[in-house]
């Protein structure tokens, strides 16, 4: 336990001193501000463009925006935030393989599974903190400008998306223990994400795919019910646990 804590502490120190932590916080904050800001600016943009639109024969009436506009933006932008997160953290394992820093820790008797656990833990905390920070900021602005009450199933739908993020984190860990280079992690994570997304295009298989959780914006307007997610949710949770557990024996057997 002591060694697990020590290694986790080292991971935090690395995130902090390399500036990654700060950068992630800034990025998620910006995304959080962007959602209501875009919603707030929409009428103004339309107004600015009204003259030119009128010339082309379109009449612009007053555009009304509300919390829903902002939340729709949230779900549009969060995939971008996830991609930035993956790009920034994809080397969390591989840079240690390539520099050889892990060899010294492991030859000191640090068990390999603790490396997987510590790094998974750090990734989960970083993603969760960033995600909920982004959510919190959007929520705060939305309740200040408009009324969050008009959106349905808000907490449930954002939790779905957060879980999808955890699924991607699991993929990062899994591909990190299987490959030596950053590109392998990115390709693997991207490839599987694309695959589960393609599954959602098949109507019959769609409810079972973790990528179903990405479409949870449909819950806000009531276009879908919570029940529509009751298959994808447990499947994703199980996949996350299985993925991290599978990473451990793979890590134990890899050559360093």
């Amino acid at each position, binding site marked *: 336990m002591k*060694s697990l804590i*020590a290694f986790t502490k080292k991971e935090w120190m*690395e995130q902090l001193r390399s500036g990654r932590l700060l950068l992630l916080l800034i990025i998620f904050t910006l995304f959080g501000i962007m959602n209501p800001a875009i919603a707030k600016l929409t009428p103004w943009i339309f107004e600015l463009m009204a003259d030119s639109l009128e010339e082309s024969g379109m009449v612009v009436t007053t555009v009304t925006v509300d919390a829903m506009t902002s939340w729709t933006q949230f779900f549009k932008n969060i995939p971008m935030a996830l991609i930035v997160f993956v790009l920034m953290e994809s080397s969390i394992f591989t840079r240690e393989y390539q520099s050889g*820093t892990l*060899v*010294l820790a492991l*030859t000191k*008797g*640090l068990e390999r599974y603790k490396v997987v656990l510590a790094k998974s833990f750090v990734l989960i905390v970083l993603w969760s903190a960033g995600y909920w920070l982004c959510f919190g900021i959007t929520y705060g602005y939305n309740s200040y400008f408009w009324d969050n009450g008009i959106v349905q199933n808000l907490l449930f739908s954002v939790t779905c998306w957060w879980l999808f993020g955890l699924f991607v984190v699991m993929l990062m860990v899994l591909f990190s223990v299987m490959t030596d280079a950053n590109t392998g992690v990115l390709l693997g994570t991207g490839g599987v994400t694309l695959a589960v997304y393609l599954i959602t295009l098949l109507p019959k298989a769609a409810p079972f795919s973790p990528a179903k959780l990405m479409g949870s914006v449909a819950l806000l307007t009531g276009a879908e019910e919570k029940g529509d997610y009751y298959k994808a949710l447990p499947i994703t949770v199980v996949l996350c646990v299985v993925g991290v557990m599978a990473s451990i024996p793979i890590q134990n057997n890899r*050559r360093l």
Partner: protein
Amino acid sequence: MEMLQITNLKKRFGDKEVLKGVTLAVPEGGVFGFIGKNGAGKTTTMKTVLGLLKPDEGTILVADEPVVYGQTATNRYIGYLPDVPEFYDFMTPSEYLTFCGEITGMDKKDIVTRREELLELVGLSGEKHRIKGFSRGMKQRLGIAQALLGRPKLLICDEPTSALDPVGRKEILDILQAVKEQTTVLFSTHILSDVERICTDIAFLHDGVVCMQGKLSEIKSGKRTEEYRIETEREADARTLAEKFSECALSGERQLLFREGKATIFELMRFLADKEIEIAGVERMEPSLESLFMEVVKK
């Protein structure tokens, strides 16, 4: 007691057989030099001892316990310094040693005393900067400190001096010399002068097998070839000698190397006396490690 006992270790990478049955015993105490050319398999052997590589065949015992690949419990006896040690360079040396102590489960007080002791030993005690800007020599010294932190019974250094300048090399050798009281040192190298300076025992690894091992002093005396360097006053005499004795080889205009074979040194001397050949000097050659090494490699 043998600190490390390797028996018939084999390892191949693809179709290249790197280790072809290495058998090696490192006795407790002293400094053991593990000598071989680049690519002889020194690093492969050491990594297998550390459980970083899976052997194809053979057994390894560290302090009489077998080494298991992957989760290697025997590593608690070992301090390891890789050829190019890489540290978390966002840490300071003192933070790094604390981290190392914590992952090995040392208690807090012990970490602090040991850390200060070792930083002092390797001359990094005043160093408050992060490892990022360290020179190779400084990293190598920090590497020794981290390897010694847990008071290992066996210190394994993979070519600790190869990449260093003469000053850096001397520092490392002095440190290794100093710690041999506390631990058994096994270090690999291809720099023979380093071996002659500090080693008590040696083993030559060549072509995937250990072809010679034992006490440095015994190997040197046992391998004493009867070799003499002879210098004549006149060039013509040197040529005459070279023609007369097949054991003689010209090594300069007036210099010869005489290696006893059919003809002994006495016969040569008798010949010199008979012919009244004037001599500038006769010297018996000490076998150098280099000549041993060359002999081993040529075989």
